[in-house]
Structure formats: structure tokens, C-alpha cells
């Protein structure tokens, strides 16, 4: 197994964790796993700086979400969104089962599309697959979301996948804008993680 394949597998694993996690603790783990996984993929082209840029955003988001439990000012979901009434609803599938089923479809689509995308001089089959899968995980979380935090995590997955792909394409010229792209949804995730969900249950 080559280094590129190993790092791409790490990116895939981070996205898979973000796909299946639930709750505030799940958001912390997702942000950290995504940052580390996609940071590894970004380092293929951008080196150590790219790794620290991507992983740093993920780690910072994870720390701030965790700190939000003790510092209410960080968890501003309530004043941003008001008091959301929570509604219980019976579902045929558990939300994780649903995401897993759709995620398998996304995995196939990412596998098919990855070979068609070019990202600079890097051999893109594996790394592009990881980026595409992270993007798809974001869309799945948005589509199946049961609260504002799911939308924010979806945005972070999308931004991480896209930014990593941009770094693979042009590592030196896009680092700043890539970090900005990831930072905005990361801030959203920090603010919205503790907001009341729209629906109860799993």
C-alpha cells in the first residue's frame, strides 16, 4: 500500500466517522476526525503546512465545541435561532442506518467520479475519492439532518472536502482561501452544536 493510498484511507475514515456520528460529543469527534483525515490527504501535495492548516481547523473546532459545554457564550444556538420546539417523530429507519445506506451509494458515486477529476500533479484516484466522499457526506448530513448542528457539520464536511481538493490542485496559491473556506462552517458548527434539535429520537 502506497503512502497516498494510506492517507486517502485516513480521509475516508474521517468522513465515515462524520457520517455516522450523532450528538454533541459526535460533533467533537467528527470535527477532529475530519481535520486529521483530510489534513493527511492535503499533505500529499501541500506538505506539513497543508496538514496543519486543515487539521488545525478541525482540532480548533473540536476544542471550541467541547469548551461550549462549560462556556455558554460559545454555544450561541439559542440566541441565534430562538427556542426551537422539539418534535418526536416515528421513523422507519434509525438515522444512522439511513445515513449508512445513502453513504454506500455515495461511496460508489465517489469511486466512479474520482478517476475523472484532475488535481494538479498528484495521482488523484485515491485522494480525489476521499475528497469527493467527504463532500458527499456533507450533503447526506444536510439532507438527513435533524437539527441545526447537522447543517453546520454538513457545511464543514463540504468545505473540508473541497478545500483539500483545492490544496491538491494548487497547494501554494490556495492555502489562505482554503482555510477561510473551512473556518466559516467550523465557526457555524461551534455556534450551533448545542442548539436544540428539530426532532428528537435517533
Amino acid at each position, binding site marked *: 500500500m502506497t503512502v497516498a493510498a494510506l492517507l486517502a484511507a485516513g480521509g475516508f475514515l474521517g468522513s465515515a466517522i462524520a457520517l455516522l456520528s450523532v450528538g454533541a460529543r459526535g460533533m467533537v469527534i467528527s470535527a477532529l476526525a475530519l481535520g486529521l483525515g483530510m489534513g493527511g490527504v492535503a499533505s500529499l501535495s501541500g506538505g506539513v503546512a497543508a496538514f496543519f492548516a486543515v487539521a488545525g481547523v478541525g482540532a480548533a473546532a473540536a476544542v471550541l465545541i467541547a469548551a461550549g459545554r462549560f462556556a455558554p457564550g460559545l454555544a450561541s444556538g439559542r440566541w*441565534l*435561532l*430562538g427556542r*426551537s*420546539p422539539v418534535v418526536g417523530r416515528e421513523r422507519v429507519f434509525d438515522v444512522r442506518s439511513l445515513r449508512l445506506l445513502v453513504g454506500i451509494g455515495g461511496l460508489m458515486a465517489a469511486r466512479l*467520479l474520482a478517476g*475523472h*477529476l*484532475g*488535481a494538479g500533479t498528484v495521482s488523484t484516484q485515491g485522494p480525489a475519492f476521499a*475528497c469527493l466522499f467527504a*463532500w458527499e457526506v*456533507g*450533503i447526506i448530513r*444536510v*439532507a438527513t*439532518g435533524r437539527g*441545526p448542528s447537522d*447543517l453546520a457539520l*454538513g*457545511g464543514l464536511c*463540504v*468545505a473540508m472536502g*473541497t478545500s483539500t*481538493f*483545492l490544496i491538491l*490542485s*494548487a497547494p501554494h*496559491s*490556495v492555502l489562505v*482561501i482554503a482555510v*477561510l*473556506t473551512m473556518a*466559516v*462552517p467550523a465557526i457555524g458548527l461551534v455556534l450551533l452544536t448545542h442548539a436544540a434539535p*428539530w426532532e428528537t429520537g435517533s
Partner: protein
Amino acid sequence: MTLAVGTVLYGLLAGAIWRWGARHWVLQVAGVLVALLVAALLAVHGLTSGRQKAQLVADGIGQMGLGRLAVGLLLGALAALALELVVAGKESLEAGATGLLVALGAPAAVVLTSDSLLVVAFATAVLMGSVWLRWQQIAGPQLSVRSLGRQAVIVFAALVAAAAILPSVRLGAAPSLLEAVLLAAASAGVMGVLPFSGWAGAVLTLGPRENAFWRLWMVPVGLLLEARLIAASSTAVATSLRELLIGLGLATALFWGARGLLGPESGRYSRILACDVGLMCTAVAFATVQGLAAALILVLAHWLAGGLFTAESGVRPRLLALIGISGIPPFGGFTGRILLVITAASFSPTLSALVLLVVGLQLGIAAAGMRANLASRPTTSSVPRELVGLVTALSTVILGVVPIQALQFLLGTHL
């Protein structure tokens, strides 16, 4: 630099309106000040910066370039907001809504001026996300409001992904179609074209007053974004993008046309607007000057007449507004639609027939709306509102009779 300073000052003024806008005269004075300030800044920026680049860039923050059309749309939206406040009178929009409507001008300006897809994605997310936050605050997580939140993230996702795969796009390659699908999804999401009905659904849930966010900012910004995306894309992408948007626009117009005809009286104007958004999307997707002009005439007609549906005005202003936007000659609504029919006819008789079908549906909706208004509304309202209704009707007649001159004067568009 000028634009950055302008954006900061603009934000401060919007914040001031939000904070102290409960006193009515503050809103009026601040509205005029904002319009003057923005006009001055945009004029200075327009004189000192170069023309907008033809191609969008995938990486970096790109450059800002301000066209005459963008200036016209930004100032036009602010003028329409002022008209809305005058029409509403004592039942004016609350200070929070007015402040947000003014503040949204800053991200709207960035969407219209930046040549970086990533920056456009950020600004679009701010535009849509701000309105979603406000609506979730006042209405709670109702299904339609939740859908709008999802729609905002999907638009952001589509634009950033389109930026990332832009270098992979080449003639005949799979990424070209993917790029077109992503750009079409982004354009449709900003405007509220099917399958993204978040705007229409939320407005129907929240009532006519909140309609202003969609009508004043999202629709014109989405249309100009669509026009820019088509113009700045390669041939391979632009062809697929246009076909997708023509199909989605017509489907939206037919769907909301039927819903408007068969649905209840409440929210009828929102359904007319949703139907017209489909027509405008189709018009711009033809990628001709006539198509763009047709869409812009419809935007102007809704800016003029839409405010009359948000307040409890009497029967005459509402009737005049309905006539103005319904497609009865010689009003602006008719001119925009007939220009679209002519443009569609040059592409395909089937398209032209479908547009005519939608126009017929809209005439039916307007007729039903007029009958309902005559049957249920009081026949008189306050003198200022009656006057505003008359002025609005006169303006839509002027727009319909001299559309070329009106577009040239207001938006700098030459037919």
C-alpha cells in the same frame, strides 16, 4: 478598498437601523442616507476599477469589478425597499427586518461583483443563511423554514464544489456535465426554482410581509448570478447549464402557475412570484439580450407592485398591482412576458407554447385574485396608499410602454 470601506459603513448603518429603527423617522432618514452613501461609493468604485473579468476563477479571492447592471440592481433593490416602507406606512416592516434587508445589500454586492467562485459561495451563504436564521427565530423550525436552511448549505456546497472541479472541465468530459449540474443547482437554490422551493414554502408559511427578502434581493441576485455563470462558463458547461435551467424554470413556472390557480386566496401573490421566478430563470437561460431584458422587466414590475401585497391596502391599489404584474397590456408584466414568448419562439415552438401556457395560467390567477379582492376587501384605503397605488400602476404602464428606455435608464441595459 472603496468597496471594503463601503461594506463596513453599510453594516454600521444597518446595525443602527436595527437598534434604533423603532422610531419611524429613523428608518426613513437612514434609508435615504444608506442609498446616498452606497450610490456614492459604487460610483467612485465604478470609476476607479476595471471591467469585470469574463471568466470566473476557481482559486484565490479574485477581483471585484462593478458593472452598470449590478449598480442598477443594488440601487433598485434599495429604492424598492424605500417604496415598501412608504406603502406599509404605520404597519411598516419591523426594525429588525428593515435592518437585515439593508444589510443584505453588502453580500449581494459581493455576489454581483466578485469573479471568484469561492467568494461568491461565501456571500451567497451569508445572504441565505441570514434570512434562514431570522425566519427560524420568528417561526421556529417549521418544515419549510428547515428546508430553506438545507437549501442554503446545498447552494454553498454546489458553488464550492464547482470551484474545485473547474480545472478538470474540458469538452466532452464527465466533469463538464457535473459542473453544469452544480452551477444549475446553485442558481436554482438562490432564486427558489424547483426542486428548491424553500423560499416559496417559507414565505407562504410566514406571510406576505417577509416576502421582501426573496423579492428584493434573492431573485435579482440569483438571476444576475445565473447570467454571469452562463456567460463565464466554457461552451461545454454553458450548453448543459442553459438546458438544465430552461427545463427547471419552465417546470417551476408550470407548477406554481397551477398551484396559484387552484390554491386559496391567501398567499396568491407569493405563488405568482414563484411562477414568475420560473419564467425569469428560463428567460435568462436563453442567454440572449432579449431574454435578460424580459427577466429584468419582470423584476422591475415585481419591485414596483409587490409592496402593495404586503400591507393591508384597499382594493384599488391591490387591483392595480395585480393588473400591473398579470400580463395585461400595456403594463410591464405584459411586456416582459411577450418579450420572453418572442425569445422562446426563436429557439423552439414547443418552448414558446409552454411559455404561452404559463402566461395564460397567470392571467387566470390574476382574474381570480381580482374577483376575490372585489368580493372581500373594503373599497377604499388611506389617501397616501391610494396615491402610491396609482403611482405604482402608472410606473408599470411606463415600464410596459417604453421598456427599452426604462431598462437603459435604470440598469444600463441596451436591447
